């Protein structure tokens, strides 16, 4: 699992906020949780229709203003709403089949290809260096 630090623009406070970001090369889009998107003042500017088994999933699209290693990027992102109980660790008395740990988007954003494709080859390679 690769975690990096990315700054996202807070439209409400007019300043950048630091986020721990999970690099996901299998995700087409960057993803942010709805309550965080709301706090940053991000507006939905469209809907993405994801076709999956069972039923289509319609997810709000937004524009993310990012800063990574002193460079700025404008990328497309998705806003995903996570159920409140999934944002905390599972309680011992809780009877459910959800994973024990809180959902990763509770306190992180996902960095997908809409961001990764904008990095230079050098920056992209650096991401995977340990």
């Amino acid at each position, binding site marked *: 699992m690769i975690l990096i630090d990315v700054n996202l623009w807070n439209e409400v406070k007019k300043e950048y*906020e*630091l986020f721990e970001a999970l690099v*996901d090369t299998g995700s087409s889009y960057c993803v942010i949780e709805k309550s965080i998107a709301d*706090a940053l003042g991000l507006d939905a500017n469209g809907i993405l229709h994801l076709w999956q088994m069972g039923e289509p999933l319609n997810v709000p699209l937004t524009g993310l203003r990012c800063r990574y290693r002193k460079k700025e990027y404008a990328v497309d992102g998705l806003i995903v709403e996570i159920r409140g109980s999934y944002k905390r660790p599972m309680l011992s008395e809780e009877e459910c089949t959800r994973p024990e*740990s*809180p959902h*990763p988007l*509770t*306190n992180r954003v996902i960095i997908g290809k809409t961001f990764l494709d904008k990095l230079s080859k050098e920056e992209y390679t650096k991401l995977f260096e340990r």
Partner: protein
Amino acid sequence: MEPRNWINKHIKELRSKFIGKTIIVCDNKVIKAYGGPVDPLKINEVAREICKEKWCYTYFPESEEEYLL
């Protein structure tokens, strides 16, 4: 050292010491720890007051993440 690099360097000991917690790191040390995950905007608010320059945060879940995104 960049705070993220410091975390990566000490990840094993930090995980065992702060399991289930969120930590804020600056100046090559843990300056605050919270139980459970914390809203990143609240973390930034606190870190701006305490840290002189760069900081970062991370959360150590008790179990490996099982979510499929």
